[in-house]
């Protein structure tokens, strides 16, 4: 399943990288200041307000809900299941001239990442080149009714950042490598392989062009924050309507207490860690001596 997803994304992703809609000559000049992903200033998501292209004769809108809008990370947190469900609201009969498609995404808080490449110098493998991605989601999962490159126009993708290559935004600084696409491609491959990024073609079940549901599995290694959740209604590759909400992922209880202590009072936290270590060491020593005396 993973292998399939990987191939799917490579198929979708690589051409999109090669013929970047924003800066088409990125690979040619390959120099400073050029970004092969939309710049961070570019409007995105709900701020971009993907003006629902008004299909005059078929105004369709999406109504959706989440199985849960909060995920609590406890000490034995082992991932979580989230179901997005909903329906399509219409004033008129279902249009027959085009197919209705749906894409649903969940996106974790952004983090910067350094991608390094090794090459052989003096017989040993050394990190030689690096590319810094200023902001890439810490988790990203997209479920669709069909392959993204079929159901979504590239310009709509660029504007709303739906496919995996699009969600990795902005390079943090001008890069010195000739082939940044190889780096971002490798990053996608690594993240898809470890389950951080997922593409689930067919993951959205659509019934009678009206009811839909998509099941997402959030992995155990989540970072805290608001997980942006989006649903897009698509016709002819264009976005007809979209819906956006957020899932709040928070540490609770002991996890939260330790995390806060570590960042708010690092000295106290450090001393506490040392005391635990010393007491544990002493305790084990005493326990073993007691055992030996018997």
């Amino acid at each position, binding site marked *: 399943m993973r292998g399939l997803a990987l191939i799917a994304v490579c198929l979708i992703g690589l051409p999109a990288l090669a013929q970047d809609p924003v800066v088409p000559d990125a690979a040619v000049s390959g120099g400073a200041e050029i970004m092969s992903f939309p710049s961070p200033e570019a409007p995105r998501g709900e701020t971009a307000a993907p003006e629902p292209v008004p299909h005059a004769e078929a105004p369709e809108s999406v109504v959706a809900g989440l199985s849960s809008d909060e995920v609590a*990370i406890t*000490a*034995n*947190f*082992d*991932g979580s299941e989230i179901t997005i469900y909903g329906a399509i609201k219409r004033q008129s009969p279902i249009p027959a001239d085009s197919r209705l498609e749906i894409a649903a995404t969940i996106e974790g808080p952004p*983090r*910067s*990442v*350094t*991608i*390094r*490449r*090794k*090459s*052989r110098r003096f*017989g*040993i*493998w*050394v*990190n030689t080149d*690096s590319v*810094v991605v200023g902001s890439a989601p810490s988790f990203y999962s997209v479920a669709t009714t069909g392959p993204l490159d079929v159901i979504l126009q590239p310009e709509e993708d660029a504007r709303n950042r739906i496919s995996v290559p699009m969600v990795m935004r902005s390079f*943090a600084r001008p890069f010195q490598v000739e082939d940044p696409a190889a*780096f971002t491609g*490798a*990053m996608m491959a*690594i*993240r898809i392989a470890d389950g951080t990024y997922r593409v689930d073609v067919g993951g959205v079940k659509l019934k009678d062009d009206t009811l839909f549901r998509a099941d997402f599995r959030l992995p*155990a*290694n*989540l*970072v*805290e924050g608001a997980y942006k959740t989006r649903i897009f209604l698509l016709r002819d590759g264009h976005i007809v309507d979209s819906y956006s909400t957020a899932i709040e992922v928070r*540490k609770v209880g*002991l*996890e*939260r207490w*330790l*995390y806060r202590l*570590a960042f708010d009072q*690092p*000295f106290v*936290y*450090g001393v*506490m*860690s*040392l005391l*635990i*270590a*010393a007491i*544990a*060491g*002493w*305790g*084990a*020593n005493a*326990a*073993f*001596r007691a055992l030996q005396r018997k």
Partner: protein
Amino acid sequence: MQIYLPIAEVAVNAFTLVGLGGVVGLMSGMFGVGGGFLITPLLFFIGIPPAIAVATGANQVVASSVSGVLGHVKRRTVDFRMGTVLLIGGLIGSALGVLVFNLLTRLGQVELVVQICYVVMLGVVGSMMLIESVNALRRTRSGKRTARRHHGWIHALPFKIKFRTSGLYLSVIPPLAVGLLVGVLSAMMGVGGGFIMVPAMIYLLGMPTKVVIGTSLFQITFVTAFTTLMHAVSYNTVDVMLAVLLIIGGVTGAQLGTQLGARLRAEQLRILLALVVLAVCGKLAMDLFLRPDNLFSLTPGII
């Protein structure tokens, strides 16, 4: 049983961590090495972010060294005076190491330098120890006594003091220098440095093997405690949940190791340690010379 680590922000199997701590603790008790040079790479391997692995590894080493050193104090095999001299060198070295580490980070090659350091150090120390202890074993088998070596130049140095427990009358300069070197390594590689210090104490300072392990553990306890605190305060990279799991395994292993170590003969112990050191060295060298499976790697943050 999966458990979520609050600082590392990953979920790992609790039993894996306890087992890992146990194995490393066993080494610690047997050889007087902190085990940092094993625990840190092992934590990388199970997916803990490197910075957290280094800092938390140091915290775990504190626990297993405390546990080990108490056993040695009971048996009067700790040379406190020598340990204090080594410790003074160690703390200065640790501060120096942080400076060097920061410099290398800015140059972008810290990983490589650390890896090469590991390979060279472990390779030299491991093979020296193996050759020496195999020879010693053969000599004791054939019934001849080994004469205590005399290092002319070391005895010519000034500032001599008596180290009664070790039965030495020695200048403070060599132990300070050994402590300093170990402190630098500790800060740069996230290790206690026992694997360098133990052979240095035996071969360079000429301390009796019996006292070496306890004394080394004594020094390691304080140097790693200092390192842990530094990491916690300046980088928030100590994960106490992870540390507790490692410690549970570690302290148990350390006790078993001390018992086991007391039963084995000194030469056999040294051969075993030499083999462990060489094995780790071989693994790290292979990583340097063989083509990696994936040429690309991801590091969180902007570096």
